[in-house]
């Protein structure tokens, strides 16, 4: 958390489970994260690390059958979202907490104009008249810099390019002036020049609206561009939490270190990429001890016995789930 700032969203001990072959297995374990007002927290991890499941758990968008929040609290505006009724939850979703997804075309209604879709959220959550809501929709389209917004208001989603559709999604998410925006890989499907535009725009809008942003991505380059703080996830757990500068300057967890070495850079030569050997353990066969132990170059026999805790590392707010690294820096 940044200094002197209120916490906007506080996740404590979240455990999200999925049912596989009649048994419940945790896809997210013991996850505690907070996001300060006006802060961008990036959650970075590879496929299956639990980063999207975390976002879906916050908004309770998990499938009805076969998934459940097994433990933990999601504290927002003095309430625990996990305890709300479905009806109370719908007044939070798309209102004070909004979400944008990777593929906007699957989240937009193809039979409604984009203006109607943006206005819909405003009429539902704010009780505005249709005319007022459409006027606000137009203002939002201009705010996200859609060219000739006046006429595009009456266009359908298929008439927009991928980058423009993502802007429409952002406009829709902003419609009710959310406190928290959950962005799940919002630029992954976009070309790099468009990605750069959307990233910079998100950053400007965060300032303008005073939002907190939880930005989920697999791309460390994107993290470096947009985040204030970063949580690195592996196999359903946060393995490292740090400010963006500390994470890239002084990565602590062996997984973070390895991840940084696997990424080839456009701006300088990478002599040799070092792939991470092995693969992520399946959710149905999580080891007793550290989930990364089987792939870790620092592994000690004790790593396989006991699950490590997320503990303070050197530097303010820097935490790491690796006793070996902690030992090294202390010793």
């Amino acid at each position, binding site marked *: 958390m940044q200094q002197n700032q209120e916490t906007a969203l506080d996740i404590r001990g979240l455990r999200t489970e999925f049912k596989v072959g009649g048994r419940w297995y945790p896809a997210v374990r013991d996850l505690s994260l907070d996001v300060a007002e006006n802060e961008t927290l990036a959650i970075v991890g*590879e*496929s299956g690390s639990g980063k999207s499941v975390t976002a879906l758990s916050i908004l309770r968008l998990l499938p009805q059958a076969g998934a459940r929040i097994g433990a933990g609290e999601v504290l927002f505006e003095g309430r625990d979202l996990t305890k709300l009724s479905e009806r109370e939850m719908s007044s939070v979703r798309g209102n004070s907490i909004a979400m944008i997804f990777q593929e906007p075309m699957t989240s937009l209604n193809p039979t409604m104009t984009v203006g109607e879709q943006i206005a819909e959220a405003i009429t539902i959550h704010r009780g505005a008249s249709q005319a007022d809501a459409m006027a606000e929709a137009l203002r939002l389209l201009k705010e996200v810099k859609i060219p000739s917004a006046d006429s595009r208001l009456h266009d359908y989603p298929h008439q927009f*390019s*991928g*980058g*423009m559709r993502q802007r429409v999604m952002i406009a829709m998410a902003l419609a009710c002036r959310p406190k928290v925006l959950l962005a799940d890989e919002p630029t992954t499907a976009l*070309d*790099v*020049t*468009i*990605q*750069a*535009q959307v*990233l*910079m725009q998100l950053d400007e809008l965060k300032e303008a609206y005073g939002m907190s942003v939880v930005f989920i991505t*697999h*791309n*460390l*380059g*994107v*993290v*470096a*561009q947009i*985040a204030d703080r970063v949580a690195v996830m592996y196999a359903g757990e946060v393995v490292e939490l740090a400010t*963006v*500068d500390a994470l*890239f300057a002084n990565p602590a967890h062996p997984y973070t270190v*390895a*991840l*940084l070495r*696997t*990424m*080839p*850079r*456009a*701006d300088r*030569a*990478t002599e040799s*990429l*070092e*792939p*991470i050997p092995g*693969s992520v353990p399946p959710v149905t066969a999580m080891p007793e001890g550290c989930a990364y132990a089987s792939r870790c170059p620092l592994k000690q026999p004790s790593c396989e016995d006991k699950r490590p805790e997320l503990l303070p590392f050197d530097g303010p707010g820097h935490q790491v789930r690796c006793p070996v690294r902690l030992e090294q820096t202390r010793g």
Partner: protein
Amino acid sequence: MTAGNGALEVRNLAKHFTIGGGLFGPEKKLVRAVNDVSFTVPKGTSLGLVGESGCGKSTVARSLLRLIEPDAGSVVFDGIDVRAAKGAALRQLRRRMQIVFQDPYSSLNPRRTIQQALEEPLRVHRLGTAREIAEKIETAITEVGLPKQALDRYPHEFSGGQRQRIGIARALVLDPELIVADEPVSALDVSVQAQILRVLERLRDKRGLSFLFVSHDLGVVRHFCERVCVMYLGRIVEQGVTAEVFDRPLHPYTKLLRDSSPVPDPTARLTLTKIMGEVPSAANPPPGCTFHPRCVRAAGPCMTDIPALNEHDRGRQAACYHPETWPGLQAVAAAG
């Protein structure tokens, strides 16, 4: 054109598509997906083809193997005219030039084991006895880093990275000389991406393979390819040695592409003062240099005339009337 040097030489390649024109559809239009594309891949080297969606890079890749028939230009592999080849000669060429796709799952038959999938190209090309085929398959599967037991399993039993290894093994069984790789690592996580790039590097060094490597990721291309061609709306706008092109781009589009590529370093945040617009539709490209509506340097002839790909020092080429200036990188005057 020298015969038998093992190089792939592409000259003035063009591919046009028509869209619309149906009974109820919009007006018929010609889309010039690939225009006047020329490059050479010498034996044992990798050439990168980078650009954003719709720039024509995949169309180029497919045209080379005649998976799409090009409309104009020449494709010569090891002295043999690919476009004129027919029957047995074409089949022979296709053995020597193989393609690896982005998503191997969609190119593997889910009802066939990996053994069957790898056998098929050998049977099609009638290469060897049953025993020789079995040996070839075993070599290929070990070469891509999978255990022999993988051969008896089905595609759904493998992860994305493993499937890509299978896709590569299937290309390898025919002992090709050139591999056209169309976004081979784009669908993979970075740690897996690094594994696959390692496999490809090893093959290039050990087998002396040549690669045409299509990608939108400048980092991957910089790592894997000695030389690079940057494409924009169906044309090559710049080419040269990869590190030099990305460090000292001549074409403003190359510079935009490089500056937009996020790097894992928070002290090097994007400072794009002016990123403008989107890629125009290939069905309705702007006149003159197709990049001019997004270009900060556009002036004069940019709006009306298509710039030629001019020679610069150090074997560089750029299609721009107002290229970026770098010391020691002047345009070579009237090279003809």
